[in-house]
């Protein structure tokens, strides 16, 4: 298919359709409302359902309902909306249902602002809701990757039977870039008759399926948590995704950055190279599972004097970076989070300060 020029939000909507998502529930919030605007037109054409909930709390449980019935389902929201859905996210994780959540992050805390931010890293990777669970979290750096990751999210949600999150930001939602859609996702979940409440008449098995998150028997709850833990361990083995930039040089500084912020860093690295200063970047594409070993290895290079995590936050991913660098190099941080994205020139100043 030829390239089309699309806004990130609209492209995410189209990607969901091409992944076979027939159920989309949402509540409007800037800067992601165009996903709903797009799908309210497109989904009925594909025989799907768009329903606007009365609040994000309700939307979270609509997702749980459809996911529990084994349907492909997605919601999109932005930071305060994701907070309201977080209770349902915990329930969906506990009940082991596949669902796709997209967070087009805006500035916080509180109502914050409507401009781009990465202030929801902790919320996305360390819980958000209560209890021992993780989301598989992917962070696109542009519209093309937002499309690819959204489609992949459905596959991974079904592979691990759990919620998957796309963590974008306001810029990725609002920006238009050329995008080439991958082939439609043809696969259907193979095992859903084993667990989903998809109706006795629709499946061969006569076993009654129960979708639940309440386990009053301590041994049963422990078993459920161990089952979740086993999935997260498998994700750490099979789903770590990252990109290295300018890493085949004798770089003096290693930047860790993701999403929109990583693009600014890439420009800064190119500009520094013209001055003869080599800097590399490690860009996690999956925030959970985190590229732990890759960060350790990249920081360990002899030429590397320091590691700096550059984020549109007050310092969140840097905690994971520190954990993975294991003290072998100093780990610094730079971030802004009012909605203004730091310029390449600013990044260059910060990097030079480390040399």
């Amino acid at each position, binding site marked *: 298919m030829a*390239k089309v*020029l699309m806004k990130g939000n609209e492209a995410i909507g189209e990607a969901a359709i091409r992944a076979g998502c027939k159920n989309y529930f949402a509540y409007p919030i*800037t*800067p992601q409302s165009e996903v709903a605007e797009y799908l309210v037109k497109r989904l009925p054409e594909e025989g799907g359902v768009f329903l606007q909930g009365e609040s994000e709390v309700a939307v979270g449980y609509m997702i749980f309902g459809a996911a529990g019935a084994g349907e492909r389902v997605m919601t999109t929201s932005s930071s305060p909306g994701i907070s309201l859905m977080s209770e349902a996210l915990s329930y969906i994780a506990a009940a082991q249902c596949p669902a796709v959540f997209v967070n087009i992050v805006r500035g916080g805390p509180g109502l914050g602002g*409507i*401009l781009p931010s990465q202030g929801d890293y902790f919320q996305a990777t360390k819980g958000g809701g209560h209890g021992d669970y993780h989301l598989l979290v992917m962070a696109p750096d542009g519209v093309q990757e937002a499309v690819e990751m959204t489609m992949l999210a459905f596959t991974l949600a079904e592979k691990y039977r759990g919620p998957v999150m796309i963590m974008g930001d*306001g*810029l990725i939602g*609002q*920006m*238009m*870039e*050329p995008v080439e859609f991958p082939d439609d996702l043809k696969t259907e979940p193979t095992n859903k008759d084993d667990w989903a409440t998809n109706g006795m008449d629709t499946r061969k098995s006569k076993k009654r399926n129960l979708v639940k998150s309440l386990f009053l028997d301590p041994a049963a709850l422990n078993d459920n948590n161990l089952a979740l833990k086993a999935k997260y361990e498998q994700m750490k083995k099979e789903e770590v995704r990252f990109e290295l930039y300018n890493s085949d040089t004798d770089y003096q500084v290693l930047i860790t950055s993701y999403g*929109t912020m990583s*693009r*600014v860093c*890439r*420009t*800064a690295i*190119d500009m520094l190279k013209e001055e003869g200063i080599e800097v590399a970047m490690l860009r996690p594409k999956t925030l959970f599972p985190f590229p732990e070993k890759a960060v350790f290895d990249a920081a360990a290079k002899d030429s590397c004097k320091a590691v700096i995590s550059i984020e549109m936050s007050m310092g969140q991913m840097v905690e994971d970076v520190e954990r993975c660098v294991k003290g072998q190099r100093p780990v610094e941080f730079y971030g802004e989070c009012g909605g203004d*994205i730091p*310029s*390449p020139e600013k990044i260059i100043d910060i990097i030079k300060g480390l040399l």
Partner: protein
Amino acid sequence: MQTEIKFAGFGGQGILLSAKLLAYAAMKQGYFVAWVPSYGPEMRGGTAYCTVVISDKLIGSPIIKNPTHLVAMNLPSLEKFENDVKPGGIIFINSSLIPVTSKRTDVTQLVVPVNDIAIKAGSVRAANIVALSAFAAKSNLVDMDLLKECVKEEFAAKAKIIPLNMEAFDQGVKSALTA
């Protein structure tokens, strides 16, 4: 080689569309492009601006403080952004609404009475197309026939207004060549 163009005006002037059409044509010509709107708590009649990045390699930061060129559709836009333009760039001035020119001497100023031309072509609503074609003709960033096709394609669902926009396009090109 990377070129950045800031389009600025007030909400409703259609600058987001002008910018999109330029990005679309550049994409069809094989360039990497990004269209980055300003999205704040804006309202109709308020300021609106948007940056198009056109590059022959993968675009890094799409956030541009100093664009190569500026298309200013009203006076506040000119005043706000004229000093950001890189030396050697083009500052396009809609003289129907901007009674002054820029104080910058290190740029090319292209002064076109966009609204007047659009009204003569049939409707002031085509002012954004006049500005687009005039700027594009002067800046040589994209193939003009391809750009014209993109404009036509954009209005495919509203066939009635295609002739108006084609006329606006042609008059815009003419104005750039005589300005």
